[in-house]
């Protein structure tokens, strides 16, 4: 299992969404995309739904947001992330 880290906190819209979507295309089974953003990327969730991705959002204060994204059918990643985020 591996985290793929992606920091989009310094990018202005619409770049964060573009960068994340491009990263999703190459996301493999067993990988979890760990996105760091300065705000919760709510519009992204509809895209993740459509793409069959699962995600988990964690905020540390108002301006630090982590979104973990993995393939919804990837049971290994699903278990891994649940353990890691416990």
């Amino acid at each position: 299992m591996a985290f793929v880290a992606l920091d989009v906190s310094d990018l202005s819209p619409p770049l964060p969404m573009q960068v994340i979507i491009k990263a999703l295309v190459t996301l493999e089974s067993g990988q979890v995309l760990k996105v760091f953003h300065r705000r919760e990327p709510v519009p992204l969730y509809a895209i993740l739904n459509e793409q069959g991705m699962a995600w988990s959002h964690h905020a540390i204060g108002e301006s630090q947001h982590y979104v973990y994204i993995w393939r919804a059918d990837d049971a290994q990643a699903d278990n891994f992330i649940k353990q890691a985020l416990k």
Partner: protein
Amino acid sequence: MRLSGLQFDNIPALNIPFRFYLTAPIFAILTGVLLIFWGEQIWLSRWMPITLATTHLIALGVVAMIMFGSLFQLLPVLCGTPIPINSKGAIVFISLLSFGILCLSAAFLQQLSFLPALFLLSISLLSFGVILIYTLWFNASGFYTRTPVLLAVIMLALTIILGFSFLLNYQTGYFGALPKYWTNIHAAFGTLGWVTLLIITISFQVIPMFHVTPEFPVTIKNHYPFGLFILLISLAIELLFSNSHVTFALIATLLATYAIAALKQLSLRKRKLPDTTIKFWQLSLSSLLVCSFLLVVNLFTLSSKQLPFSLDSIIGVIFVVGVVLSVIQGMLLKIVPFLITLHLQQHAMKYPMGMGLMPDHYAIISRQHGKQLYWIHLGTLVIVVMSAFIPSLTKLVGILFIINWGFLWLMISRAYNAFSRIKLDISNA
């Protein structure tokens, strides 16, 4: 896992805001034509037919038109709810509003009765106002935006109601000549209430989002919109009974401190990349500082008539051209490519092979064109202020208005054509 706030289903079709954005420049161009032919007269008095016609062409045709279009986009994003008007409804609304504005200007120029304007504007503006207030009251969320936007819309409603009562009075002559008090309140609620309140509220969200700055201080976000609303209501009540120098000074102080706070936020952005929208914001906020200062100066010179020119008029043009038209154009430069990218992204989800065709932000409106627009606009602002002292320059202001807004219309129109082309390419990828 949760899906809250903004949903793609809630975002209006791209053609809805763009219809407003493509209509507004036409009214600015029309204003430019009027300024070329009769512009010098605007400096004689705010009651001159040409002054009334041009101010309402700008206030309703340009400023309100763009703000209405933006509200269609912003309400789903900031308040989690769409304005329940579809594309056909938007076309009907824009048509009624546009003809209403044209009839109003023709009536001010004494070419038409006020009745057609009253009919068209009351249908369009009142129905839109009711829908907007209902949506904000019953469906909207968003802690920092719902109530301030609602306050701005209430100010708009009061401005419109006052405006309609003036039109009825013009038509029937029932009340005779109106006391200056009512028109002052109409102007104050329209400019400082509706327009400034909305700009301030929206800036709390769009400056940190688009320019990667820290959030505005909570004290400012929580208190400034309410403070401005309460001060404007106090101003209206005080003006009925006496002068209101203290309230005017408080409003000027609030606007100046907001401008300083917003300029500071912009200076704190993480990546200081060249961005014309930032220049437009800085020009707008600096103009607001100048207006606030001149408002206070005006308090000390009102009664003594010490100045050889109308400071009221200078504050008015700096506010309209410097504060409002700067921020509107800056935001259009940012929001037009953003909306196009957002809609193309949504489309590309159905055609993943076309994802590689997604355009760069600056491929939609180039940096060079943005810069050129800024310099033309800055030139317009300088000349319009100079024309208060040299009225013959007003013709040049008219020409610059036509160039400025014709250029902006072309940019938005090209951007929309690029959207249609790229969308088709993505479908065929």
